[in-house]
């Protein structure tokens, strides 16, 4: 049975497009006087966050609440996790409390997979970011934002669209999930980064790679800037922040070379002045704030499709 959303690769094209069309309906809820749907009444969603996060946790919380689910937030700080409790014991506790879905963020790649397949919990597991591995709901909300702007909100709308993902691909779970999902949806992805920030084995990803930002972005329909994750960096990946910005940052001069319809995206949190300048982030092309709004709609769609019926409509096997 399909129960979990652990990787963007779990989604077939039909699954992904079902999430996008469902999210489109969920988004229209924001214009109604009562922003609440009864679909998950009586279900419990646990947000299990071993790593800091503001927007993803709030986004999942808002999504679950708008679907009338009960939400339990479980952050590592201030819980038994900081006393050394293992993932297994935490999972057994959640199971005993009767969670229907566990939204998990963990610093170690593969933790959600472990949680889903260990037999510790019977609930659905949604990966909200694991280490440098995957962040499938972020990829879905990015795809949804592109689909609204470039794909005319219809199935197949991203076929042949070109997306440039720029920056710290090495430490980015967003880049990996986006590359997989956008490929599934028929878009062409180019990763742009210095050689030191491309992961080993990137040649097996379904993407092009480039070291030259100026050559790639004039052809792109969407440019996604990634944060340089300095907290994950030990050692020198580039000489100075200033040199990084000059070669891989998006500024007004580079923005002027984009096509008229091209959108600028960023998964957040942004470091203004590093990978993106303030005038670009605040420009009319920037859909960064919209990405946050869409995040709630997409997460509602995912929770609804996993929990709304007797069995989930999307997601990975087993």
């Amino acid at each position, binding site marked *: 049975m399909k129960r979990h959303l652990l990787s963007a690769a779990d989604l077939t094209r039909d699954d992904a497009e079902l999430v996008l069309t469902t999210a489109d309906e969920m988004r*229209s809820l924001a214009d*109604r006087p009562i922003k*609440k749907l009864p679909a998950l009444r009586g279900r419990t969603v646990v947000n299990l966050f071993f790593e800091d996060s503001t927007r993803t946790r709030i986004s999942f919380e808002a999504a679950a609440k708008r679907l009338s689910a009960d939400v339990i937030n479980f952050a590592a700080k201030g819980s038994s996790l900081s006393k050394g409790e293992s993932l297994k014991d935490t999972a057994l506790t959640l199971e005993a409390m009767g969670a229907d879905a566990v939204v998990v963020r963990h610093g170690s790649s593969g933790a959600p997979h472990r949680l889903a397949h260990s037999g510790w919990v019977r609930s659905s597991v949604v990966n909200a970011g694991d280490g440098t591995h995957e962040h499938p709901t972020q990829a879905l909300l990015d795809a949804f934002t592109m689909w609204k702007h470039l794909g005319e909100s219809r199935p197949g709308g991203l076929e042949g669209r070109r997306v440039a993902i720029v920056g710290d691909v090495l430490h980015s779970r967003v880049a990996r999930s986006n590359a997989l999902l956008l490929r599934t949806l028929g878009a062409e992805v180019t990763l742009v980064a210095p050689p030191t920030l491309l992961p080993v084995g990137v040649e097996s990803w379904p993407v092009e790679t480039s070291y030259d930002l100026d050559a790639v972005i004039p052809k792109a329909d969407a440019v996604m800037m990634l944060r340089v994750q300095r907290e994950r960096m030990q050692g020198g990946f580039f000489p100075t922040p200033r040199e990084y910005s000059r070669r891989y940052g998006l500024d007004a001069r580079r923005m002027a070379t984009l096509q008229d319809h091209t959108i600028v995206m960023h998964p957040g949190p942004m470091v203004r002045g590093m990978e993106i300048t303030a005038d670009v982030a605040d420009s009319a092309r920037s859909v960064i704030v919209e990405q946050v709004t869409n995040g709630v709609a997409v997460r509602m769609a995912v929770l609804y499709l996993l929990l709304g019926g007797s069995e989930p409509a999307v997601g990975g096997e087993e």
Partner: protein
Amino acid sequence: MCAQPAPAEQASSQPSGGGRTVLDDRDIARALTRISHEILERNKGARDLVLLGIPSRGVPLAQRIAERIAAVEGYAVPVGSLDVTMYRDDLRLKPARALLPTEIPPGGVDDKVVVLVDDVLFSGRTIRSALDALQDVGRPAAVRLAVLVDRGHRELPIRADFVGKNLPTSLVERVRLSVAEIDGVDEVTIEGTVTR
């Protein structure tokens, strides 16, 4: 008498599915025209009316009723759609279903006379869901129900205000509306009829 003409009808007028045609395109057109007039009569005109079709096949029916009202009154009645999927009482019993479009006309439904439009009225459960869904959208002055076919077997205390055709059926039968906008043909068929 029943057994012989049925295959001939299927061959001539049914490219899509099996079953016996009980309403053809002209019957449907006449029924919708009558419903449109009844709505106007009951409402004493087209003012403050909002038509909400229940997807998928209630929506084209609502649009056709609006066209007829516009032809008679010269007033464009707002038309929208109201998806009831998340409000169904059997949501938990089946795999999660895709949502259908909900489009509330720009004027909203507050203090309007909302006419819900659906194809077939059966158990009444869809309409109960629609009433719940409508409550989350606004507070209409009144809610009325128009259906093309009422096949009986209600499981809830719900009735239609405007009915195209009352069709006595048995519980094993399936009543299906096809509309030109979705299925390429206008007709109402009954499937699974016990041959007598």
